[in-house]
């Protein structure tokens, strides 16, 4: 038994190595075009592996614990998601915005769906499904904030022209809020659109392998993707609404400007 576990662990690590190598090939191809993200990817790969192994180990312990532990786990995940998302955005106030958006977006959908029994309240179901919603909400939030920042910084002239004419600060960025919201939901919409045609998600495969009826597994996979869309959409809607005011000072001056080179 012990030797089976260790041989599977070794096999898992070997598979992780091969998958990571495939990622590094992309880095090498990008290097040829002078795009460098070697260290970023390396850190992300090591960190991702360490985190998932740690969480996997904790999960093994928690699966035997009381139900409320899943709530603590999901809250911790949402905190980590807000932190990750805001670090990438580099917008003043982004952590607070991300926290509110992910808690309200992913948190409310998880709570609602669990109370409606769409998500099983057992830790073995709630934590993995909930984490999917949180992770996707985080990605959507990052996309929305990054797009917003890029759009605002590339339209400083238009925004300040509108301000100079007496327009309300938040009104001047309305087109970029809308564009950010739309762009952030492209992955979630494409996932729904291509479900079963381009990809068969792991959750469905796992359910079938563990003996669930294939048709029910397929429908539940759709349920999960629809929940992902709902939580991601709500997260993006909230974060793009809240982030607007952080682009301006109290005197309605645009502060989210491209950084000036140091003199």
């Amino acid at each position, binding site marked *: 038994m012990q030797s089976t576990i260790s041989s599977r662990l070794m096999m898992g690590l070997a598979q992780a190595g091969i998958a990571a190598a495939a990622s590094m090939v992309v880095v090498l191809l990008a290097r040829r075009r002078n795009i460098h993200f070697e260290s970023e990817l390396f850190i992300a790969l090591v960190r991702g592996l360490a985190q998932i192994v740690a969480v996997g180990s904790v999960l093994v312990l928690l699966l035997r614990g009381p139900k409320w532990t899943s709530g603590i786990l999901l809250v911790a995940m949402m905190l980590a998601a807000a932190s990750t998302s805001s670090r990438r955005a580099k917008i003043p106030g982004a952590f607070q915005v991300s926290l509110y958006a992910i808690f309200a977006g992913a948190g409310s959908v998880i709570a609602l769906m669990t109370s409606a029994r769409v998500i099983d309240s057992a830790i073995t179901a709630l934590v993995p499904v909930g984490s999917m919603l949180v992770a996707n909400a985080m990605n959507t939030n990052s996309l929305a904030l990054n797009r917003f920042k890029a759009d605002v910084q590339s339209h400083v002239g*238009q925004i300040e022209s509108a301000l*100079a*004419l*007496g327009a309300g600060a938040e009104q001047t960025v309305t087109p970029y809020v809308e564009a950010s919201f739309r762009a952030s939901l492209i992955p979630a919409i494409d996932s729904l659109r291509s479900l079963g045609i381009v990809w068969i998600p792991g959750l469905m495969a796992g359910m079938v392998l563990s003996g669930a009826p294939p048709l029910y597994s397929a429908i539940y996979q759709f349920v999960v993707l629809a929940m992902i869309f709902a939580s991601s959409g709500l997260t993006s809607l909230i974060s793009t609404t809240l982030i607007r005011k952080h682009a301006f000072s109290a005197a309605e*001056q645009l502060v989210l400007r491209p950084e000036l080179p140091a003199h």
Partner: protein
Amino acid sequence: MNHDGHVQPPSIVLRTEHLSRRVNGRLIVDDVSFEVGHGDILAVVGPSGAGKSSLLRLLNRLDEPTSGTYFVEGREFRDFAPRELRRRVGMVMQSAYLFSGSVADNLRFGPRQRGEILTDVVIADLLAEVGLPDFASRAVENLSGGEAQRISLARALANSPVVLLADEPTSALDEEAKRGIERLIVDVVRQHGLTCVIVTHDTAQAGRIANRVLLMETGKLKRIGPTEEVLSAEHN
């Protein structure tokens, strides 16, 4: 001249007191104090990086002064809501930055912020004033650089400002369009009874349109006075 035969100084519309702005530890506007009277056209000149545009941005409150203050018609700038201050102190930028849509949409933009809808007659008058009659329904994408800058000026005028700020409004234009905008600025300042502060790196342009010149260097006010006096002192 008043009834005693004394020349009355022009009423001061814009006054700055020790206005400064520090960015990343560097003073980009350094203790600048000056006054601009009703009907004056003050050209702010100086080398690149002198702080000319930074000074102008403070006057429209697009940036906040680090210290010092300024007054518009005797009221400190902080006494105005930012939107109201920006309506009174209109600004034309280096690029026109017209909003997508028609010329009329652009002219209506400012007044609409206060719930005012400009009539077609008012729009036609504004367009005639900037030399572009019958342009109301044109899409802004089809305008030349000079036409766009004229529309930008008309858009600022639609807000009925008391002060007009212009930040290098002709720097992206050819010589003919540039001269046209210069004449237009002089005309509208006169017709609307405005006070104008125009930033330019071109001292010849300052000589053509301004009655007073403010020379800046490394954020500081180096000299201010009648145009000929400041420019000739600079050339000597």
